[in-house]
């Protein structure tokens, strides 16, 4: 039996044997620490994500010291922004007990349609107005998701798979299929605007793009919404138990429309940032990246069953996924292997958090 040594220790302790007492204490302490660490990680899943980030960085950095450069960090941040915006949307929908997979289609539709429209009708439109258009468009699409989910009482995963297909098809049929290389001037300059440029003595340069601020603001607003407003608490209430929340006076329709509209808003903005940073608009872009984003949110400690998750954890999850997708190449790991690592991490995180010990 597993607890044999500990029991033996206790028995000896009772008869007064010093060595036995020490053995018993040591076994007890070990068990306590193990349980304590598990409890701790269950309460603060973000710490687990952080540990994985440190682990990956340490391994890559040891194999290839070139990793330790400011430009690596800036590149990471640059590639995190769009995923991060999407992830915050997924987080808030998950917190309310739903799952959204249509955000990439919403982002693709709004970014491409707006790029086409701006080029055609108002090529000199400022980035602020373009961003606003993306936000409004995304919000409208998201609200439709929310209304469908609420009125049909259908699982949101199914509904958003449906709207994703519809949106993609509408985009390619009515808006266009051509790659646009000359994006509007405002988007081009927004994408290249540097918040800070670092010129190391060794040559080369590291640029921190200004659009990183979009993610910073979005994360701040999302955090505030979730933790400092009644709406935020209602989101978690609905995600915890819809029937109970309804009985307690929370209006599920308002909450569901809100979370999907908010996820749509972030997707719309994410789309604009995507075009700006790539300086091209491709209607086929972003397809198939849904799982990467959901993986990031799950790795950030949110449970797929809903009702949990934090903004900080989600951002760490995004960093972890971006890290694995971008820097493993520095360690000589072929890019085809990246998904193996992400997959293994997800299984690891899932087994850590999903299985709660029976009371």
């Amino acid at each position, binding site marked *: 039996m597993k607890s044999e040594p500990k029991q033996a220790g206790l028995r000896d302790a009772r008869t007064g044997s010093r060595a036995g007492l020490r053995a018993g204490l040591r076994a007890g302490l070990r068990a306590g620490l193990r349980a304590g660490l598990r409890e701790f990680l269950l309460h603060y899943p973000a710490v687990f994500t952080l540990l994985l980030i440190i682990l990956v960085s340490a391994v890559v950095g040891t194999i290839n010291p070139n990793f330790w450069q400011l430009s690596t960090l800036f590149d990471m941040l640059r590639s995190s922004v769009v995923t991060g915006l999407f992830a915050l949307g997924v987080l808030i929908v998950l917190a309310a007990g739903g799952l959204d997979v249509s955000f990439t289609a919403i982002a693709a539709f709004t970014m491409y349609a707006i790029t086409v429209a701006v080029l055609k009708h108002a090529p000199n439109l400022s980035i602020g107005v373009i961003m606003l258009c993306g936000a409004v468009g995304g919000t409208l699409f998201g609200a439709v998701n929310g209304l469908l989910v609420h009125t049909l009482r259908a699982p949101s995963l199914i509904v958003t798979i449906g709207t994703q297909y519809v949106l993609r098809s509408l985009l390619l049929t009515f808006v266009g299929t051509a790659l646009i290389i000359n994006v509007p001037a405002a988007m081009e300059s927004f994408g290249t605007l540097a918040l800070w440029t670092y010129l190391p003595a060794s040559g080369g340069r590291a640029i921190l793009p200004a659009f990183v601020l979009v993610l910073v603001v979005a994360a701040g607003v999302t955090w505030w919404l979730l933790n400092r407003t009644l709406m935020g608490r209602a989101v978690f209430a609905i995600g915890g138990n819809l029937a109970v929340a309804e009985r307690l006076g929370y209006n599920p329709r308002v909450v569901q429309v*809100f979370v999907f509209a908010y996820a749509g808003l972030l997707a719309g903005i994410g789309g604009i940032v995507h075009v700006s940073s790539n300086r091209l608009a491709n209607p086929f872009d972003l397809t198939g990246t849904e799982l990467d984003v959901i993986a990031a949110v799950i790795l950030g400690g949110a449970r797929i069953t809903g009702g949990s998750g934090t903004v900080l954890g989600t951002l760490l999850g995004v960093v972890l996924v971006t890290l694995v997708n971008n820097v493993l190449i520095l360690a000589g790991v072929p890019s085809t292997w990246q998904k193996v690592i992400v997959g293994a991490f997800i299984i690891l995180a899932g087994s850590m958090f999903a299985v709660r010990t029976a009371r």
Partner: protein
Amino acid sequence: MSTFDTARAVAPEEADARRAEKQFLEVRDIHKRFAGVHALRGVSLSIERGQIYHLIGENGCGKSTLIKIISGAQPPDSGQLIIEGQAYSALSPIQALKAGIETVYQDLSLLPNLSVAENIALTQQLVESGGHLARRLDRRKLEATATRALAAVGLPGEARFMHQRVDELPIAMRQLVSIARSIATEAKMVIMDEPTTSLTKREVANLISVVDKLRAHDVAVLFVTHKLDECKAIGGRVVIFRDGQKVLEGDTQDYSKAELSYWMTGRHLDETRYRNEQPQDAALLAVRHLSRAGAFADVSFSLCRGEIVGITGLLDSGRNELALALAGVAPADGGSVELAGRQVALTRPADAIAAGIGYLPEDRLSEGLFLEKSIQANITAAVLNRLRGRFGTIDAERAAAMADRFVADLQVATPGTALPVQSLSGGNQQRVLLGRWLAIDPQLLILHGPTVGVDVGSKDTIYRIIQRLTGQGIGVVIISDDLPELLQNCDRILVMHKGRLSDDFVAAGLDENVLYEALAAEAGGDVKTAEAAA
């Protein structure tokens, strides 16, 4: 909607005479139908401030439906609700809360992923905003309200407890949290739907002191309950429902327990011992030095064929864990179990089932039944391999025959076995679950709280079934904190304390107070000395 068939239990003039300023809520001629079932047939009721009401009746009598209508969870088909002179044809949850009607639901209606403080005090801010969510969360107020409410129900108010997630709390504490929520705001009426189900006697006493405080503040309290003892002990008005109608309203002190249960069921029930069989002389179960770290230690007892052994103890006594160990759900880590002369290793539920041990869990809704599945699927769930036909598919005819047999045998009231289990009342659900374990041809049944949330009439039926089973040589272990239940049904009663067996009583002729003393005395003064010795 027709109201011709209503029989008003209280004459209108009489009600008028009582309607002074004391009246808070009047329910007038409420009807409600669900898919052909006439759940409420013209119910009228008047609730006065500072008065305690006990709404009792069998499962399915309509009392839960009335609660849902008063708390705004469901609209009535016809009739009126009059709150402080204002008439409503239906209430929304927010309207009910705003009017000061707070409800402690039987399922507690807590949000598992939110903190204790949020569960208690968020509603206050939601009601103040009229249900609008575009508001800032006032965290200081949240904590102040929660602290006040926690103190009122006797729970700790320190930050660490307040920020704990509710799903990490033990059930009894969750119940208190739910009660704390109902009194966190200026409630004028508190409805408690079977609030004492998972509480021990001491916690019930605590709850009663909370109720006394509420009454002193002129709050009306409406208990929905099965427990006639508590109804008599707490006092106040009693309202009895049967078949969707009010059949009795009066002072609790004017009626004996036997009279109350007669009004509930419409028949006279035996209050005496059910035990009518003699255990056989053949040993069936021998538990030797069974231990599980942190739960129980060195538990030894034996049981003969056809014998009923009761096990009781306080919540932390290890009785629940012992039940789970015998069922293979949470295995023991030391000691042995011998069944019919053979040593059995119970490391998973399948081991227990293979050995012929059936386990009726404490919470049939979340641990026992597949609520949305049919009665047949629930009864046959543990014996599917025996119902295998050709090509490995389930033989539908045999499965249906098996379900029919147990439904008839256990007197489950249902029009057919294809209906989902959730369409049944609590007592009938419990019998379906019992049927599942009888289907495995058990040698031993472990019944964990077999009549929790089951009404008097159904209890009677379940007890008779248990007695009959022992006549077939099945051994039964009943784990329960319902002491009359143990006294009425068992041959022997074991008491657990701090993970160890402390007493072994012969049930026949045992006084309930003696048994309770054995449970509670140890919880008091003896604890410290026991800890010091350890």
